[in-house]
């Protein structure tokens, strides 16, 4: 695997500004199931710099949620490493891992199940403070009120149970809880997709504001391209357990290099009839293959409109190029040349 040279090689060093907030090295997670081995994450290299939001997009079954869990040591990798602030946390266990959990945290998709129904909001937010001994008991209530205030909740809410809150409020509490120990890395796994459209906006705004104020690095996982475009500095695209493209958001959304990135972008309907109906359309044939048995060669080749023989046999490595304007992009596609040029996709394929 070639490593993006923006990353500090090896991820050594300590606390210096160059150490990435998160560095995933050749990360693999296979699950044994009754039907065989699911290759959920299958060799991912990814770096998140300090204070940056990296958007991770992909469809169901792409392994993006598993990647999120690996990144905060909620799952143990089959191989590879998860380096946070210079330390491989995937191999830590017990007390040391628990101590380190102060510096990275996660919020989940479903606000209905991500908070303990038997705890009040205050208890939920105070718990990480107690575990990591951040405030003394006396100052706890004040600290909790303060944290609730930063996520836009009134202090009275501390006495309520989760089932008394709306979805949006619950997601704010989740954020408050996750950010209470002031982590340097936050993984947000589809934090808005279970919410109503009108509520999604305020939660996206909140994440943007909090990130701006607190400066944590964020892995923002979503299938909602628009949300990712709104929030992320850089974007990674996953397909069947592999990252197929990483680029700054501007480049990715204006000129995607990998065919899958482009198809994904064009499949998301725009909330504007004129634009939506006049744009070039590419409808993917076939289905997402099973992660039990990913295709040989490039994993996308069975659905790729421009696949050639080489794609069927040889798996493309992630390559990095510097694009006009100085930004860098990484991609895993044989058909993109070093100038970032690739054959156009055939438009209007017959559906099915």
């Amino acid at each position: 695997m070639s490593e993006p040279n923006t990353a500090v090689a090896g991820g050594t060093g300590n606390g210096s500004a160059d150490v990435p907030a998160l560095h995933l090295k050749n990360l693999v997670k296979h699950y044994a199931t009754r039907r065989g081995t699911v290759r959920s994450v299958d060799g991912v290299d990814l770096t998140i710099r300090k204070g940056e939001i990296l958007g991770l997009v992909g469809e169901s079954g792409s392994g993006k949620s598993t990647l999120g869990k690996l990144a905060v040591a909620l799952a143990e990798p089959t191989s590879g490493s998860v380096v946070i602030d210079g330390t491989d946390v995937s191999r830590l266990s017990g007390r040391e891992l628990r101590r380190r959990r102060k510096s990275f945290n996660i919020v989940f998709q479903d606000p209905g199940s991500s908070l303990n129904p038997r705890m009040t909001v205050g208890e939920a937010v105070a718990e990480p403070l107690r575990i990591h001994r951040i405030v003394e008991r006396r100052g706890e209530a004040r600290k909790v009120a303060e944290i609730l205030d930063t996520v836009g909740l009134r202090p009275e809410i501390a006495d309520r149970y989760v089932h008394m809150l709306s979805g949006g409020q619950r997601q704010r509490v989740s954020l408050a809880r996750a950010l209470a120990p002031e982590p340097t890395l936050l993984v947000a796994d589809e934090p808005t997709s279970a919410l109503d459209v009108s509520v999604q906006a305020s939660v996206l705004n909140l994440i943007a504001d909090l990130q701006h104020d607190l400066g944590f690095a964020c892995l923002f996982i979503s299938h909602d391209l628009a949300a990712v475009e709104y929030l992320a500095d850089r974007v990674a695209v996953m397909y069947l357990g592999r990252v197929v493209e990483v680029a700054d958001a501007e480049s990715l959304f204006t000129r995607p290099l990998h065919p899958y990135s482009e198809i994904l972008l064009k499949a998301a309907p725009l909330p504007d009839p004129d634009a939506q109906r006049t744009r070039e359309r590419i409808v993917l044939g076939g289905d997402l293959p099973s992660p039990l048995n990913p295709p040989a060669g490039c994993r996308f080749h069975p659905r790729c409109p421009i696949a050639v023989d080489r794609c069927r046999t040889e798996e493309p490595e992630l390559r990095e190029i510097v694009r006009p304007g100085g930004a860098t992009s990484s991609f895993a596609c044989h058909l993109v040349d070093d100038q970032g040029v690739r054959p156009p996709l055939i438009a209007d394929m017959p559906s099915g």
Partner: protein
Amino acid sequence: MITAVLVRVARAVLTLFLAVIVVFLGIRMLPGDIAVAMLGQEGNPDNLAQIRAAYGLDDPIWVQFGHYLGQVVQGNLGRSSSTGLPVAEVIGRALPVTLELAVLAMIVAIVIGVLFGVAAATNQGRPADWAVSSTALFWLSVPSFWLGMMGILLLSIVWPILPASGFIPFFESPADNLRHLVMPAAVLGTGFAAIIMRQTRSSMLDALSGDYIRTAKAKGLSRSKVVFKHALRNSLIVVITVVGLQLGALISGAVITEQVFVIPGIGKLTIDAIFMRDYPMIQGVVIVVAGAYILINLLTDLLYTLVDPRIRLGGGAAS
């Protein structure tokens, strides 16, 4: 699929093996000397020594177990200490009686249980549902042996139409056989009917609220097709499991029913053996019953796999 079945079978065998160990050790953990227990306090030392030698009680316990296991595998369960008859033979005579009772009871239970369960579910919230559900709840609260006594009181004494006790083998007189078994089977069966009815009702309600039921309705299918072709079949999967589990409980129920109606089946044999302190017999009966129960559970599991294509075929797209 085949490996899954083999794994399941292997598990059942392991469970049976462990069960045999438990029974074997359980009997040996009895307070006091088995030989004394067998002979009673009057046994003289010579006899005790004889018994010990005959049953190998002086050997180390693993030797005894190895010996016993070897015998069990060959189908030899030892001799009764009270009558001297081979345990396997005695059980062999009692088993068909219990099986007949159990099968009759199960038929009663399934017919009544499924029928009324479907009726209650399809009339949810209406008086019919209320009546059926309350009756089932009441029936669950009635001890079966008391139900048996009440049956005898009403149908054999106050209004004598059925015999109060006893058993006539089927091949001697089928009619008499049935006359003697009607009441025990009804008593045992209706108790389980209540359990099956409740399960059928709740899994039917579950099935009826499924999205695919809405699809079936949206297709314009008639109500009976929706209920029987779509909902019932899906809810029966759950019912099958429950019926399988209840078969074991039915064996327990038979013990006491046989006691009340004086039927010479496994249940009566067990209780008599307990009071006679006939340990080889107790050991034998418990192992046979456990074996039967493990077999039933195994068959239920396999049946389940057969009925549900999601388990049967596996594979397909991950979802």
